[in-house]
């Protein structure tokens, strides 16, 4: 359904003669497919191009080569069929929960009464009923994530793109947010491309874990987690989880080997 086809992106050295050595291949002919309603985690160290890939999928960055197709149509810019959830959620501090959720619809020109109704539906779905008039700084991190998810789902997207949404929170909060995300994802049924640098997070959330290596950025392994859903703490102590953790870590370490002296 979502096809990443020979995607390439380089930074630096544009136009300048003799600057060839400084070119960074952020993405080097990356290809993979994502099936409908699949939860796919892109895992890699910082600088491996995983965020760049997500930004290209969101239409915020233009690739140098290759393309992304969503249901057979090439992605050329931001669109209503994709929602991006930012690091730290990207909530607008001057807008209430309602104002944030309806922001996407407002940009699309949906009339006020209609966007209010749609937003209310998703606010109810993520369990924020009663908090419509609260501002982001007045609610907890979990509620901020739910606000961001309600905004993302309000467009009824085909793909949800998530850029390390839990990178800045502590361990306990993070686990709580992961469970909350899984719960909402289960009830919404949508395709997710989730970028993270945490091995445990990628395994716990994903149907598949795509391990990325850096310089040049490419997919080093495509691992189906095959852990039963719904997942909870027990899944993390299962033998399969340990096996996956070893496997993924091994693939990641393989990447670092040539760089070591």
């Amino acid at each position, binding site marked *: 359904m979502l096809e990443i086809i020979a995607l390439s992106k380089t930074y630096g050295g544009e136009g300048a003669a003799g600057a060839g050595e400084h070119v960074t291949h952020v993405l080097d002919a990356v290809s993979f497919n994502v099936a409908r309603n699949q939860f796919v985690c892109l895992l890699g160290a910082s600088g491996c191009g995983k965020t760049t890939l997500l930004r290209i999928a969101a239409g915020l960055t233009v690739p140098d080569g290759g393309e992304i197709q969503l249901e057979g149509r090439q992605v050329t810019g931001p669109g209503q069929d994709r929602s991006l959830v930012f690091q730290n959620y990207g909530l*607008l501090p001057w807008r209430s929960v309602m104002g944030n959720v309806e922001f996407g619809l407002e*940009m699309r020109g949906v009339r006020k009464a209609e966007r209010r109704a749609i937003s209310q539906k998703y606010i109810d779905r993520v369990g924020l009923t009663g908090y419509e008039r609260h501002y982001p700084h007045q609610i907890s991190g979990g509620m901020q994530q739910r606000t961001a998810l309600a905004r993302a789902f309000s467009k009824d997207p085909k793909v949800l793109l998530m850029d390390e949404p839990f990178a800045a929170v502590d361990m306990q909060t993070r686990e709580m947010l992961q469970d909350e995300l899984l719960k909402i994802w289960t009830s919404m049924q949508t395709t997710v491309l989730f970028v993270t640098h945490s091995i445990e997070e990628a395994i716990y959330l994903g149907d598949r874990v795509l391990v990325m290596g850096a310089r040049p950025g490419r997919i080093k392994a495509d691992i189906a987690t095959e852990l039963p859903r719904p997942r909870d703490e027990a899944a993390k102590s299962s033998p399969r989880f340990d096996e996956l953790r070893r496997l993924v870590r091994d693939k990641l370490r393989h990447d670092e080997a040539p760089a070591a002296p």
Partner: protein
Amino acid sequence: MTAQPDVTASSPPSRPAGNAARRRPPVGLLRDIRAGRHGNLVRFASVALTLLAWEWYGRGVDPVFLSYPTAILGAVPAMLATGELQRAFVSSILGLAIGLAAAISLGTLLGLLMGRYRLVDQLLDVQINALYATPNVALIPLLILWFGLGLLSKVVIIFLAGFFPIIVNTYSGVRNVSRGLVEVALAEGASEAQIFTKIVIPAALPFITTGVRLAMGRAVVGMVVAELFTAVSGLGGAIITYGNAFKTDKLFVIIILLALLGLFLTESVRHLERWLAPWKETERAN
């Protein structure tokens, strides 16, 4: 170990019992005042004491050089009866209102455009910076030459005083809009006009109101300076008139009125800031 020293510390053997009772730490009201728990009471007492001292000292001084609180207060009814106070006040406020309104609208508009669009910035930044660097007072004789001694001169001087803090703050506000928030709108497919009105302006709003608050103070100064130069109207004009006539009590009425005006203006913008950008308030608190 920790509970024990109480006994030995409070009654050393050499000190008589009566003395020990007097040196005990103060209790009740006095202790609370020392701990800073009665801020308003202390402030009120301090101001009252200052006024009393002023009154006592002022009564002994030649009224040409210094007046005193009750005399200043006593001068007010006469000034109101002749209408001179109202006339001066209205004349000043009119110039202030027009000049500030122009400074706020033009300063905000240009600051937003220069902050967001590099071309506008390049077109105007040299002129703006040059004018900003020029002390406003130096321009006053020229402006009076051009615009006369009337309201127009005053308005232009007040405008110049208020314009720069607003444009400079608005500009840096726009420059400080986080790239992430703009991308939130871009990812939703927002147009440039939508980004400008829905992201850039609200994100820069706290900076704009700070600029307006600074401008209020500068504008009042500009107003008085303009009126001192033209010496015919407004509160500044009244200062010259009363000063030349050695009516020091009336002079003080004007000075106190100006202080109150400045206080009122900056406080109202502070409230406006809190109302317009409550999220910044909590950021400050954190």
